């Protein structure tokens, strides 16, 4: 094709240099984003493999597929890998890394070398984690609750703790880079009220990464010290308080949920206006709700501890505050819906994922109301209800958003189009598989099946079989995009600069971009999402 030849001649960040050194020593934010993409995909499939083993074990009530200890290690490492090595870096370190400079009109992040360092830290942490897994694993649950983790577990707690400690620093450096970049590197005219909401979401995410992660880091250091040197800081037999560990742990780990979901919300907020050809409804409120979530998210952590033995009064305070954080999430859902009103909607793959996101996130959010209600939390916490709830948020929400974003920006990242029909098909499979996997778990939880059970009473079997069946469908839905993305890198249609007719600076430059993104620093004179001035895709003159 003639277009392909023309495309191939254009210099971009991918074909500018070749060779392993040009990748491993790169300071280009786009290349680092791809390094992250490859590494988190690797960990996603490891974590997913563990998840499948867990589901297979739960196919029957008896503990027959794996040993109890193996099962405990499986869910522990599934959690640790998915949370710390996939979800937290997923959108920020891949899409955020790629897009934050492009969207604000900068040549790179403020600290390119620190950006590369953060990837290396991530890789070091990843290798430590893998080493931990192959040499025996860890069985404390991803939550590391003391005194089990410090005094009773016989597994590699120290190594896993240090791996997550290092991964935490990687996350801090990413957040630091974003905050400074967003403050200092915006193109002329790119005022705060013109920023894409994706940037607002990443700004809020970075705040959480910066102020939450260090607390987790110090907590893990104390756990490691306690285990290594036989101290008693969290050990009740030596005067320590195990609840203190839980307080410090959840001070980070609750806001960490927002590290995962906020960037997804940002992605969806980009996609919906684009495929509805409309300005976002209530820009200011959506932006403010991101910051609101980031701040209020720090005030609610002890709702994970309502039955853990905290005082009655603090439980009440935390329950009330938990409801406050639901308000900004509701605002977002309402605004997305309102944006559709009187739009001109097309159903491309990213839009399908975005619809899926809204649906699943709404269900996840509403079930959160159950858990924040003290009386009900007592019954459903630590059961499969909680498992279902947070998978609706983290998988139904964060991963759907991640896939939506990958499809939406894939033409910009790779310069190629993916096969649209296959994309829609995969989106459908993911949505169905997901619901079949996790909806039964709400019912299981309400019936009283506790989490982290290797074997269970037979009356729970039917729902577990459904869930396991769903998980295999879900697995297919996740493998498909990986295959066709890889396929499209070689055989896909070359992508035009702006295939969706989208607003935003990243679409004003070539696909894929050059190393320094912008030939000259752009001057922004328009508001975000000014879809009245951008022609829809067919009306764009064919690229030549």
């Amino acid at each position, binding site marked *: 094709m003639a277009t392909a030849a023309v495309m191939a001649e254009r210099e971009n960040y991918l074909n500018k240099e070749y060779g392993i050194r040009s990748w491993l020593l790169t300071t280009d934010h786009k290349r680092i984003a791809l390094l992250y993409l490859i590494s988190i995909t690797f960990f996603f499939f490891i974590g997913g493999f563990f998840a499948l083993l867990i589901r297979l074990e739960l196919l029957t009530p008896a503990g027959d597929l794996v040993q109890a200890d193996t099962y405990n290690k499986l869910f522990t490492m599934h959690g640790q890998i998915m949370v710390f090595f996939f979800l937290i870096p997923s959108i920020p370190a891949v899409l955020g890394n790629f897009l934050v400079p492009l969207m604000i009109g900068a040549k790179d992040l403020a600290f390119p070398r620190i950006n590369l360092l953060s990837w290396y830290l991530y890789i070091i942490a990843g290798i430590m984690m893998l080493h931990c897994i192959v040499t025996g694993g860890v069985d404390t649950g991803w939550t590391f609750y003391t005194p089990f983790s410090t005094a009773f577990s016989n597994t590699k707690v120290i190594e896993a703790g240090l791996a997550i400690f290092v991964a935490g620093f990687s996350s801090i450096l990413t957040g630091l880079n974003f905050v400074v970049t967003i*403050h200092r590197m915006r193109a002329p005219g790119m005022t705060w009220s013109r920023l894409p909401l994706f940037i607002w979401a990443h700004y809020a995410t970075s705040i959480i990464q910066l102020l939450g992660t260090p607390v987790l880091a110090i907590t893990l250091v104390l756990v490691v010290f306690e285990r290594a040197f036989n101290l008693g800081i969290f050990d009740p037999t030596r005067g320590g308080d195990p609840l203190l560990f839980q307080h410090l742990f959840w001070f980070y780990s609750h806001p960490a949920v927002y590290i995962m979901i906020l960037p997804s919300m940002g992605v969806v907020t980009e996609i919906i206006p684009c495929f509805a050809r409309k300005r976002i409804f209530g820009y200011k409120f959506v932006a403010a709700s991101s910051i609101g979530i980031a701040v209020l998210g720090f005030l609610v952590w002890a709702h994970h501890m309502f039955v853990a033995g*905290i*005082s*009655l009064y603090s439980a009440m*305070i935390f329950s009330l505050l938990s409801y406050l954080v639901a308000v900004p999430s509701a605002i977002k859902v309402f605004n997305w819906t309102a944006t559709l009103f009187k739009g001109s909607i097309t159903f491309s793959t990213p839009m399908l994922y975005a619809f899926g996101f809204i649906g699943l996130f709404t269900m996840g959010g509403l079930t959160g109301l159950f858990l924040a209600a003290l009386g009900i939390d007592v019954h459903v916490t630590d059961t499969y209800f909680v498992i279902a709830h947070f998978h609706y948020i983290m998988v139904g929400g964060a991963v759907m958003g991640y896939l939506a974003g990958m499809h939406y920006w894939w033409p910009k990242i790779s310069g190629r189009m993916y096969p649209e029909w296959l994309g829609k098909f995969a989106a459908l499979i993911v949505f169905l598989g997901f619901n079949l996997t996790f909806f039964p778990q709400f019912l299981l939880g309400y019936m009283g099946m506790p989490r982290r059970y290797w074997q269970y009473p037979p009356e729970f079997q039917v729902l577990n079989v459904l869930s396991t069946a769903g998980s295999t469908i879900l697995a297919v839905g996740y493998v498909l995009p990986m295959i066709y993305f890889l396929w499209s890198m070689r055989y896909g249609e070359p992508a035009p600069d702006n295939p969706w007719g989208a607003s935003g600076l990243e679409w004003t430059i070539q696909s894929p971009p050059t190393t320094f993104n912008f030939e000259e620093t752009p001057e922004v004179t328009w508001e975000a999402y000014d879809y009245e001035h951008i022609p829809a895709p067919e009306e764009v003159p064919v690229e030549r």
Partner: protein
Amino acid sequence: MSEHIMSSKLYYGIWIALMCLTVITAAVSFVDLGPFNTIVALVIATFKALLVVLFFMHVKYTSEKLTKAVIISSIFWLFILLALSLADYSTRLFS
């Protein structure tokens, strides 16, 4: 940021103040003030920290509001951590 070059006299003045406060805080701790010992020690420490932040770290002379925002928000977050944890510990006895 700190285009402003401060006179070295001011630096020496701050240094003398910090040294004096150190000696004072150590000395006061030997005097029985009841519960006020802790309060005095923390007030002096905060005052010293303020001197360092404002003068040695040039925050007093920076025109940048952002730096102050970063400092204030980090202290605010520390306050959240301490206050809400203590909300549990201080009310446990009542329930």
